[in-house]
């Protein structure tokens, strides 16, 4: 330290100090510029990476739209097998009427219908519609031929029913007592979606209330 001090006294110390200060400032400025430039470059690289990712994503739009269109077509076809409406009570009522009609057509004598509410299973297709299901326990009497006719009606039905269980027991002399557990499926759509559907843009139409 003393020798440095001596050197500084011997030379033009003010100029030397000024030179050192300027040199250090230039070095610092250089480092700062370099760091700043590198930071900008990193930011640019990051932005470019994002841009490339977004371009790749947006490039998928036609394919995704096509996929969605196909899926919506399929959804519409499947939805035709479902009861559709804005109110669960009305749908269950319509479902009972439909089953009752099939029973009557087959010649069976209805005894009881007991719908058991199920909770809605899921939202469908990003719209305000929900897929729901209802279990129906029904009992009626009739001959084996009438029972077979009922089954044929059920299988032919444009609406979707799933037979879960059937119990047949002899009844009177030639008849059968038939207990059947069915599961019916339906779509509940929000009023705005229903209105849109009625306007021609939707896939499904609400069932008119038939009463029970």
């Amino acid at each position, binding site marked *: 330290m003393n020798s440095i001090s001596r050197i500084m006294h011997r030379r033009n110390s003010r100029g030397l100090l000024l030179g050192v200060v300027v040199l250090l400032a230039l070095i610092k400025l250089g480092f700062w510029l370099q760091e700043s430039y590198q930071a900008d470059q990193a930011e640019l690289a990051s932005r470019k990476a994002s841009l490339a990712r977004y371009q790749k994503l947006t490039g998928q739009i036609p394919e995704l739209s096509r996929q969605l269109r196909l899926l919506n077509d399929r959804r519409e076809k499947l939805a035709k097998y479902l009861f559709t409406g804005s109110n669960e009570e009305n749908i269950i009522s319509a479902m009972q009427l439909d089953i009752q009609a099939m029973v009557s057509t087959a010649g069976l004598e209805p005894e009881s219908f007991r719908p058991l509410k199920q909770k809605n299973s*899921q939202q469908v*297709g990003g719209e305000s519609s929900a897929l729901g299901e209802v279990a129906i326990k029904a009992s009626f009497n009739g001959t084996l031929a009438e029972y077979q006719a009922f089954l044929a009606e059920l299988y032919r039905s444009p609406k979707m029913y799933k037979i879960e269980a059937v*119990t047949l027991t002899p009844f009177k002399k030639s008849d059968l007592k038939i207990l059947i557990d069915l599961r019916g499926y339906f779509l509940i759509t929000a009023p705005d979606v229903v209105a849109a559907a009625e306007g021609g843009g939707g896939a499904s139409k609400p069932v008119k209330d038939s009463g029970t």
Partner: protein
Amino acid sequence: MMEALEVIILADGFVLSHARGRIREELRGEDLDIGQELTAFREKHGIGRRGVNLFVAEDLVYGLALELPLRTPDIKGAISLQLGLLLPFPEEEALSSFTIVRQADVYRVTIFAVRARLAASVIEELVEDGFTVKGLYPENQRYVTARMRRQKWALVMPGRQTKVLVFNGTSLQNRLLIVGDKFTSEKISELCGVELILHTDPPTGSSFVDAQPLLTEAPLLREFNLLPDSYRRPDYLKMVLVAMLALNLLAFAGAIWVRFDHLGNQIKRTEGEVAQLLPQVAEVDKTRVKIKKVEEFVTTMTNIGKNPDLIAIMSALTSNLPDDAYLDQFKYDSKSRLVAIIGYANDLTVLTGKLQKLGEVRLKSTTRRKDRFYFQVEIALHE
């Protein structure tokens, strides 16, 4: 620099020199027109240069060494005052130059001065004859060359009084006057504290080092330029260098600015493109969510599966039941594909044997009453 003309102003004449003394002429006498003499010298030796470095013989130079306190407010003023006190002629008639070295507790000031009229006529004559006077120095500066940059040395210059100039590298540290001529290199070395003692004209047999080899190199001429500013030619090279430095700095700063600006523009452009794409990206995300939900719906619907063919199951059961069997109940569960039948038959072995064709048969219970076997059987239907 090697090719510069040199004129040494003596008390009674001049020494003209070119190429550091390789071409040298001495002119003695009064009323010499140095301009014309130098022109003749040039023509005689075919010298093209017109730049001249003037040196004043050491005998004609007044050298002063001062020490000023560090707190001296106006150093130049103090030096001027000291010159006025110490010079044997008015300070206004002097051409002077000085160096200041800051020491631990004082400024050490070394001053050289000459009578203005001594140099003025020489300078004017030279200028009149088309020469460019580059500088006016004490003669000792002829010997200060780059070779001595890292040496501590002293230069003995004989004359009316012998002068000893003590240098640290190329910087003059002290100037001593020695009375008498009986001195040796060792004595001077002891006096100055410097080992290397050069002599401009070493006596034969002395241990002085000859200073003449220093004249083969270009003098640095960094200190003690006595030439008044009015005679000094503007240093165009320095101006050009400063201008080029400034230009380079500007260009460098400009290049940096351009690069940063270019980078900034690229970032902005990319940001703009990203911003333009963001709504479409949001649309992609929305579409994907929709697709996922519709797929879930389709999957759920597909997984519901087909209804069992009950008529076929009942037909198969009827055809596989023995003729003596009677059913009280038929039950079918579609989830487990399990048929449960309750009834009676004459032979259970025959019954279960035949029903094996439909699936795995499990006999849940049996009772025998009136030669009949009442049974409860479960059949897990084949897939």
